[in-house]
């Protein structure tokens, strides 16, 4: 039982005293998280340029669009790998990173969402506490994973269309046949904004929750450890990961 | 008393059906019906007005470009956009080129077989044909050997018993009057004209990217950027040279082949100067601005109307005087089908009430056509080359007067002879010569501007829809090869609210109006003699003299 060292602690008028340092995010979760983040930043920038080339060049040797597309595809591969890693971990990871933690299948998950919503909308004074994700976050995450998947599909479809590679066409060719290529582009483009919107809320809520729970949440996605009051840990009927 | 039906009327564009009442060997009444509807005016609603031209151009692939031009002009009128002089010139070159192309194809490939019996060409003596050819023109392809070659080709065709396109003609009909030599000559030129049109239309390929359906119009100008020093500029000196070379060949072909052929044919069918007279009212919006669309006085062909065959007076024309009836058309109007509507109030509400297909006859007492009935101050008008030439002639257009009088003296016929089936053919030929002369001049002006550094082809002030008023409306016109074309557009919230096209063939081939006044075809067919009701070639002669386009007429 060590005492938490977290900036959210510093403002704490009282120390949770017996908070337990709990290992919540295993390495693959953290790694995939940050690779996803970095690649999305790159993909969005290059992608937006592809949508609307805002850099005007005149030089004979310039290769701006070519480069942007190259980087986009590079980042896309990173993105895909990180995504696949995370999906793998849905099935082998700990209880907080398993798929079941993200799909609202149990009644208390739905109730949990309700209380989170009422918290965000100021109907509840205080936040409900969770060891892993709160139910609302978990569901949005699931939604994000789904969008990532669609972005990958549409991206690959666009790619197969431009390179006309037989292999790629074999795997993804069915999609452009199903939905016209220009609507795939549109979807691919619009989902980018879904990412923007997510990140804004995501970062904000992470900070907010850290602040409220004083549980070093923000740090957790770097270190893997959260600080959970003993009581909670006991209530949540687990001591796994507790050190 | 018999009811003749011609459906399909062939060697035209589109789906035209003629029903005629024949008594005592001549037509006592006639009904003209268009039997295909697409609803393009409805499809345009809610779309970006800047691209309307791309859609409307597909109204017709024969008179391609004309609906594109009328459309950009309509939107420019609504938004108050003036196009730069270069754009005006390029549009004029494209338009004039279309006249020559369309008229040549019409005479040789759509109309000629009404006057020329291909099978008679076999009886011709190539040597005599060569003499005939040399007697009427300086055109080099006139040797005996050449005509022999052509004749053998026809022979081969006939012997193969597979006459292809010529298999079902009215061959041997008593109404054919040309001597065998003239037939052989015509067949040769039928083939040459096919080659000619293919070469000549490359002017459109350069300026429009392709033909049919050119792709370089823009609201505010044209997309063919110009630059004197850029090898990849759509228009540069090298391409202009190419254009003017092709243009020159056209002038030669028209003056040495088309015109002499028309005169020759007319010479053998003089009685058709007295037939197919029609309404006697002629309309022209005027065309080819040479100092901005608003200065009608500088138009190359004047605007005006001639009423009751009176060439001494040219009446002013205002688009507000146009209206369309649906009394005998398969549409319904809010507020009843007996009143006409100006295109700004125009409606396109299809409502088929004709016989259930397959059918033998239309119910001509009720509604019987997909064409509406356009009227000018409630008067039916004829439009087309004849109208344009008469309006120009009556307004004292020097060059037109010279050409018209030239032809009339050669045929020693009075000006009034022009109110006829042959008159339309002659007027079309004269107009072709006029425009074939004009194309090189405009190409040269374009070159001058290029050389003097005026490179503007587009006015972008109103390109961004954000600069548009909440609602606007405009009228765009064009004197298309077949006559007066008008597009009326209403724009609201940057989208098309209503779009109405009143098209040359709608004027000419339209059904009766609320007052029962006949359309131009219906009127022109009256009193047409019919030698053989089973093979009514005489009806085709008069109908074809208008150069029908039904895809245009209904759209």
């Amino acid at each position: 039982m060590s005492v938490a060292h977290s900036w959210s602690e510093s403002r704490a008028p009282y120390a949770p005293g017996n908070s337990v340092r709990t290992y919540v995010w295993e390495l693959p979760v953290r790694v995939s998280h940050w690779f996803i983040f970095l690649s999305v930043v790159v993909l969005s920038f290059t992608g937006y340029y592809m949508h609307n080339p805002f850099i005007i060049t005149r030089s004979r040797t310039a290769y701006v669009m070519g480069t942007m597309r190259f980087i986009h595809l590079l980042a896309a591969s990173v993105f895909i790998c990180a995504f696949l890693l995370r999906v793998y971990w849905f099935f082998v990871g700990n209880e907080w990173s398993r798929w079941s933690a993200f799909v609202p299948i149990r009644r208390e998950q739905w109730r949990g969402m309700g209380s989170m919503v009422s918290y965000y909308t100021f109907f509840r004074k205080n936040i409900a506490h969770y060891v892993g994700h709160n139910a609302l976050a978990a569901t949005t995450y699931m939604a994000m994973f789904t969008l990532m998947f669609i972005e990958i599909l549409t991206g690959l479809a666009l790619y197969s269309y431009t390179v006309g590679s037989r292999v790629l066409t074999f795997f993804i060719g069915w999609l452009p046949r199903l939905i016209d290529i220009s609507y795939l582009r549109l979807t691919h483009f619009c989902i980018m904004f879904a990412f923007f919107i997510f990140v804004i809320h995501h970062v904000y809520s992470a900070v907010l929750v850290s602040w409220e729970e004083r549980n070093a949440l923000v740090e957790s996605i770097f270190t893997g450890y959260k600080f959970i009051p003993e009581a909670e840990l006991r209530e949540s009927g687990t001591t796994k990961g507790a050190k | 008393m018999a009811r003749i039906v011609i459906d399909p009327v062939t060697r035209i564009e589109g789906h035209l059906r003629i029903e005629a009442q024949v008594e005592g060997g001549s037509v006592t009444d006639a009904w003209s019906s268009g039997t295909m509807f697409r609803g393009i005016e409805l499809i345009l609603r809610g779309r970006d007005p800047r691209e309307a031209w791309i859609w409307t151009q597909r109204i017709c692939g024969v008179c391609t470009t004309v609906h594109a031009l009328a459309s950009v002009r309509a939107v420019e009128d609504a938004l108050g956009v003036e196009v730069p002089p270069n754009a005006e010139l390029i549009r004029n070159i494209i338009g004039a080129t279309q006249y020559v192309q369309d008229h040549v194809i019409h005479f040789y490939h759509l109309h000629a077989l009404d006057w020329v019996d291909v099978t008679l060409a076999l009886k011709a003596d190539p040597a005599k044909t060569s003499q005939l050819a040399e007697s009427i023109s300086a055109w080099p392809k006139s040797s005996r050997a050449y005509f022999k070659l052509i004749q053998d080709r026809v022979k081969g065709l006939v012997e193969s018993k597979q006459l292809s396109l010529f298999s079902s003609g009215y061959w041997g009909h008593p109404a054919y009057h040309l001597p065998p030599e003239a037939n052989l000559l015509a067949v040769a030129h039928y083939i040459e004209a096919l080659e000619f049109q293919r070469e000549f239309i490359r002017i459109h390929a350069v300026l429009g990217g392709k033909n049919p359906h050119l792709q370089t119009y823009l609201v505010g100008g044209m997309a063919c950027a110009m630059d004197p020093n850029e090898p990849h500029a759509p228009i540069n000196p090298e391409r202009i040279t190419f254009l003017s070379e092709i243009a020159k060949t056209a002038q030669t072909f028209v003056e040495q082949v088309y015109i002499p052929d028309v005169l020759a044919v007319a010479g053998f069918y003089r009685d058709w100067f007295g037939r197919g007279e029609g309404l006697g009212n002629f309309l022209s919006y005027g065309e080819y601005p040479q100092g901005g669309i608003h200065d009608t006085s500088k138009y190359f062909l004047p605007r005006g109307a001639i009423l009751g065959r009176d060439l001494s007076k040219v009446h002013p024309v205002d688009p507000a005087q146009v209206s369309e009836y649906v009394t005998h058309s398969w549409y319904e109007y809010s507020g009843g089908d007996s009143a006409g509507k100006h295109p700004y109030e125009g409606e396109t509400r299809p409502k088929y009430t004709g016989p259930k297909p397959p059918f033998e006859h239309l119910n001509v007492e009720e509604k019987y056509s997909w064409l509406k009935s356009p009227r000018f101050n409630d008067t039916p008008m004829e439009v087309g080359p004849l109208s344009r030439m008469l309006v120009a002639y009556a307004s004292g257009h020097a060059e037109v007067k010279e050409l018209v009088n030239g032809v009339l003296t050669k045929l020693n016929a009075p000006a009034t002879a022009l109110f006829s089936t042959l008159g339309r053919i002659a007027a079309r030929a004269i107009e072709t010569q006029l425009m074939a002369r004009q194309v090189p001049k405009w190409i040269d002006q374009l070159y001058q501007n290029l050389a003097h550094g005026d490179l503007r082809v587009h006015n972008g002030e109103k390109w961004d829809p954000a600069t548009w008023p909440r609602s606007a409306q405009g009228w765009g016109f064009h004197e298309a090869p077949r006559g007066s074309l008008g597009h009326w557009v209403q724009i609201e919230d940057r989208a098309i609210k209503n779009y109405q096209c009143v098209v040359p063939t709608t004027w000419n081939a339209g059904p009766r109006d609320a007052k029962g006044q006949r359309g131009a075809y219906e009127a022109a067919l009256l009193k047409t003699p019919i030698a053989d009701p089973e093979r009514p070639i005489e009806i085709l002669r008069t109908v074809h003299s208008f150069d029908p386009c039904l895809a245009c007429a209904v759209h």
Partner: protein
Amino acid sequence: MLPQGQSLSSALKARGVSRRRFMEFCGAMVATLALPSRYVAKVADALGKTKKPVLVWLQFQDCAGNSESILRASHPTVLEVVLDLLSWEYHEIIMAGAGKQAEAALQRVVKEEKGKYLVVVEGAIPLADGGVYCTVAGRTAIDLAREVCRNAAASIAVGACAWDGGLVAAKPNPTGAVGLEEAVPGLTLINMPGCPQNPANTVAVLVHYLTFGELPATDQYHRPLFAYGRIIHDQCERRAHYDAGRYVEEWGDEGHRKGWCLYKMGCKGPQATFNCPNVRWNDQTSWPVKAGHGCLACASHRFWDTKSPFYERLPQVPGFGVDVSAGEIGLVLTGAVAGATIVHGIASAVRDRARGETKPAEDQKANPSEFAKS
């Protein structure tokens, strides 16, 4: 299969023209539009020995643009095709006969040439209201299409309209127009889309059929691969400018005069397959992009709706007006959320003050159920 298809292809084989070489030549022919006239000669005299195959051309809800287009064919010319290679027995826009005689000509082919003739279809076929929107000789288009196409050896749909309804079937499709494939299912058929179709490709298909008695290889839309297999964008002479990042920004600007890329002006080249840039039009003279305007993707499926608005890069977002782009919508939404978040942040800070201090333990007793039970 045409009976003479055999004799001819063997005739050509005898001359050492393998099917493969012929396909290459077809490819080359459309790529360069230079059909060595000896081939026409060969094909022609091989056919001359027997009876020429018959072709009929039907026009329905069309603009005749495809008929005009075929008149511009250059290698071989329309005349060589119409008179030497085939017997072109029915084509309303140009045939000699009219009315009864025309009808009779068509009926003769359907009866006497049953299963041997080719039929070209131009224009869409209206199915709404019993097909009254297009009749010929009192019969509906669909009625004629069924009879004539089902009795043909093969059908060729030319132009966007005959392929998928084209412009006629664009929203709201007032006449219930469809393409031939949908109107008369189960035909031996090839689609030659484009608005209009490019005659170089259509003539190549005809020559191929005459030579081997069968249609060339096609894609899932039954379009011949040699013509519709590659993206415009990848064959475009302006592609280097695209990759470099040199774009036309305004009509008539420097980039436009220098022939830079039209991507930002809405060019659909990156989303369209066709051999337009290689074959070009009117005897290889030019093509739209060369002439200065973007591609419309006129050979793409349902392009009138899927590729418009033509001056925008992407289609409209369903439910928004023509003038609202996806980018605008996205940026506005993102901005809105950012704004909301800031407000929420301030509000939370205020709550934090107002709330004062409560031991988490206490309010947890209030509603214990909210401990994650996982």
